[in-house]
Every structure is written in C-alpha cells, then in structure tokens.
C-alpha cells in the first residue's frame, strides 16, 4: 500500500479541437495518476464535443515565467515591428501564414 495523501495532485489539461491546429490549455483538474487525469479531462473538458485529442501534465512539472520578469523578458520586443513579416508579399498559394 502506498502512502496516503490528503489531496490528489493538480494537472493541467490541453485539448486539440476538431478545427484546432494546436492543443490549447483549457483548465486544470485533480487526479490520482496520469491515466485518471486523462479520463477526468475527457469527462470535464470534452463534454460538448470540443476535442479530438487531450494532453495532461502534472502542474508541478511546468516551469513558468514569473510576473516579475515581465519587463526584461517581453518588453524588449515591443518596439521591434520589423520583426513581423509584414513587409513581404505573400504568394497566393501560401494559405496559412
């Protein structure tokens, strides 16, 4: 018998919609293990026919940027409009840009 914990760990849920290109973060839930997290995600987040694929990952496995780092991380790109590819002509047969 394994040790008993008071609460199940938290998982983050990512769902790829029928029309979606990427898996999108849709929320979080509690589950005892990975397999249960996948089934809970199916039950909680795909009830309205939203998804065709689910990823779940333990929340404590995610490394997130800190709000304190917002300026050094993101502000420098705020004035560099030339990084956007808006100065190019997009050929007609390239649909997904």
């Amino acid at each position: 018998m394994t040790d008993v914990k008071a609460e199940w760990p938290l998982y983050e849920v990512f769902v790829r919609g029928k029309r979606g290109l990427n898996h999108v973060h849709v929320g979080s839930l509690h589950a005892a293990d990975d397999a249960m997290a996948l089934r809970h995600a199916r039950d909680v987040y795909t009830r309205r026919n939203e998804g065709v694929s689910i990823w779940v990952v333990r929340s404590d496995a995610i490394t997130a940027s800190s709000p304190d780092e917002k300026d050094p991380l993101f502000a420098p790109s705020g004035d560099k409009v030339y990084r956007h590819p808006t100065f190019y002509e997009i050929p007609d047969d390239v649909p997904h840009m």
Partner: protein
Amino acid sequence: MTDTTDNPYEGLYGGDASHWAFGTGFEDPLATLGDTRVPEGVDPRDLAAYAVMLADDALVLSHRLSEWCSNAPDLEEDVALANVALDLLGQARLLYARAATIDPESVPGVPDGSPVPAEDAYAFFRDAGEFRNVGLVERCDEDFADAVVRLLLVASWRLAVMERLRAGSDPVLAAVAAKAVKELAYHRDYAGRWVVTLARGTEESRRRVQAARERVWRWRAELGATHPVEERVAQAGAGVDPAAVDDEVDAVLRQVWDAGDLDVPPREAVPAPRGRDGHHTDALTDLLEEMQSVARAHPLGRW
C-alpha cells in the same frame, strides 16, 4: 460534412470562434435510418416490451447515478458520473420513443391535456409495478464503491447485449445499440478502473469495495436470466437473449477481479420475484416518487 479530424488546417479560415467553446459535428444516431417499420415475424407487443425493459434499466440507473452529483468524492467524479447518467438517459429516451412507435397502446395514459411526449409518459406516468428494470439498477448506493461496482456489472452486461443488438432486425433498436456501444465501453472502463483502484488502494478502500461487491452481487444472476419476452424477441431476430452473453460478462468481470486481486464470487440464484415481471423493492417506489413528483404535480407543464 467533411471530417476535419485528420487535417487540422482545414477550416481554419472562415471558422467560427464558437467552435472552440462548444464543438461542432453533433450526430443524430437515427439520422441515417430509412425504413423504420417493425420487422416481420416479431410480435409488436413483445418488441415494445423489450424496448421498455432496456429503457427502464437505463432510466433507473441514470437516476441513481445522478444522485451522486455534488456528493461524489471529488468534483471530477461528480461530472464523470453525471456524464454516464446522461448517456443512459439518452438511451432510455430513444428506446421509449421506439416502444411508442412499435406499440402505441403500450404508452401510458397521461392526464387530460398533458402535452408530454410518449417518452415522458413512460418515465413519469407509470407506477413501480409497471417498470420492467432489473433489481440491480434500483437499489440505493451505500457508498462510492457501491456505485462503481454496480456500474461495472450493468455496463459489462449492457455492452455485451448492445454489441449483439447492433445486428438485430429492428433498424431503430440496432441504431440505438450502435450509439450505446461507444458510451457503454467508456462506462465499463470507468467503473472497472475504479474497482481496481479501490481494491489495490488502501486497506479501507479495499474493505469498502469488497463489502460493496458482497451487497451488489446477489443481483448479478438476474442479468443473465432470460425473460420470456427477451426469449421470444431474440428468437425472432430482433433482440438478444441475455443467457447468450452470460459467460462473456463473467469473463470480463473476472478480468477486473483478477486485476484487483479479488476472488471470483460464486454465482447465486436468480432473485425471485423478478424486476422484469414488475416486482420491485421499496427503493424503486422511493426513487419514482422523487423523479416523477414535478411531472405529476404539473401535468400540463411544458418542459
């Protein structure tokens, strides 16, 4: 419509943002049906009674499962059990509606002026003695282990029946079965995983699941005991004889018991009198009193 499942690039342009919130591509399980006449060689009264049996099992268990909403061990289990309950409710509606088309005389009388459809008449305007569900589905759950053990038994049995009913001669029952198979496969998986999890969890969870199985097990035998209506409908090719799936159900259950390191319980005698004949415990009377109270208090209501 085109299936965009395998090409996520399809439809990115001109898409509607609401697709992300609600999904699209909902299916009507009866949409592709052509001829829905009652097949030859089947007594319509038998076939309607058979549909009502399958519907009653689903409706009563659906209500028992819905009682877990807000009472389950975790929010996620609330939603999971409610999903299962709604799947079963959907099966019951289609089966009642089919029973009404096959044998209009089987539709219960409703108060004068009541606008309720036939499916509601079966659900809300029959007393316990007119219900034909097996005893297993009506009993009260004592704890969560009860709920998952009972669901494992019902889902394993019903899945085996519905898999065969897909090839039955009644086109509507076959279409309902095709829809139900996908749902029941998930219900069985959900319940089986929980039984194993509890059996291999803590001492307390193992004790609970063993006690639950002892309480529930006496109702197992009725699932495999063929009722004369089931026998006649099965012989006519429109239904499934439960005796024919009994060994298969036992084999499925044995897998779960083995995975949970639980012994295989011996078979017990079929409880008599039987739910399939309209004999029920007080648990069903209490359940119906609550489930039917609003519909009966407001017989002219529109829902």
